């Protein structure tokens, strides 16, 4: 009983904390971010297991965690609102070759970091980018101008799921 309650509390807190930190923490990690994410399990393991090192307690705690993960995924699948609250929505960083400075600053993505992602996509400058979107998992998706228009044409011919 105690173990389940502790997992629920820690899960809720960590979900909240990671949501507040933003999307970047899930992708390429800086040293500070890496240390933060490595330390969290170390800190919370004491809070969950306490002095009870039994296998039974570990199984209960892992089961409780997996049940929470499953319930969370069900809720986000069924409710777009819950999906928006739990998984941060994508953020547009570049549109039609224009940087959106407010979004870059809010997500703490530097111009050089964005340019590096643009280069990885095989492009040389921001003007070649139709969309640069910071996804919920922290990856920056780069859609070149030509590809965006081609995809748009293709979308029109695609049946609705």
């Amino acid at each position, binding site marked *: *009983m105690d173990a389940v309650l502790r997992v629920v509390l820690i899960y809720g807190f960590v979900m909240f904390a990671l949501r507040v930190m933003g999307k970047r923490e899930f992708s390429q990690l800086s040293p500070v971010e890496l240390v933060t994410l490595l330390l969290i399990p170390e800190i919370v393991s004491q809070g969950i297991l306490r002095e009870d090192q*039994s296998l039974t307690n570990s199984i209960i705690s892992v089961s409780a965690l997996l049940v929470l993960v499953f319930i969370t995924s069900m809720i986000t699948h069924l409710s777009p609102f819950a999906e928006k609250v739990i998984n941060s929505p*994508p953020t547009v960083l570049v549109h*039609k070759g224009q940087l959106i400075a407010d979004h870059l600053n809010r997500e703490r993505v530097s111009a050089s970091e964005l340019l590096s992602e643009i280069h990885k996509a095989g492009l040389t400058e921001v003007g070649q980018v139709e969309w640069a979107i910071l996804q919920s998992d922290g990856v920056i998706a780069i859609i070149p101008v030509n590809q965006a228009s081609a995809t748009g044409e293709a979308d029109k011919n695609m049946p609705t799921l």
Partner: protein
Amino acid sequence: MSAPTPPAPPELKVQIRFQPSQWLGLPILFGVVVLAILGFFGQSGRLLTVIGDGVELTLQHPTRTRYGLHEQLVIQVHNTTQRPLDAVEVRMSRRYIEQFDQYDFLPTPHGIDDQSFIVSIGTIPPQAIRQVTIALTANNAGEHWAEISVIGGGVTVGKASFSTWVFP
């Protein structure tokens, strides 16, 4: 001017579908959690009273525990007669005690034979109670059976048995 938004995702009829493995696995995971909430895997104890020959033996013992957790076994011997009970010994089955990682008797046993730890509690005056306490730390998993006997004046005057289930 509002901030640009990325193209909207296509429409999808949202439904809940499970994979075959999830039909089996999810009830197990949910079952473990529900049983834990209901206290099935938690520590529990019982108070057991046995009337013997001129003595009342009261045991407060763990019935369920988990590896590494601390438990206490309390044995009270009440002399219910109007005369003193001499040379009283409490014998606790060794097979049970040795299933635990640590065991501390109070008072300390004065002897151990093949079957038992033997704790001497001397003479119990009429209507008096003497107590033996054993602090235990659970180790081996499974059900462990214990037998306790009280010897007074060279004969067995009380006997009780119980079991403790230890989760791994």
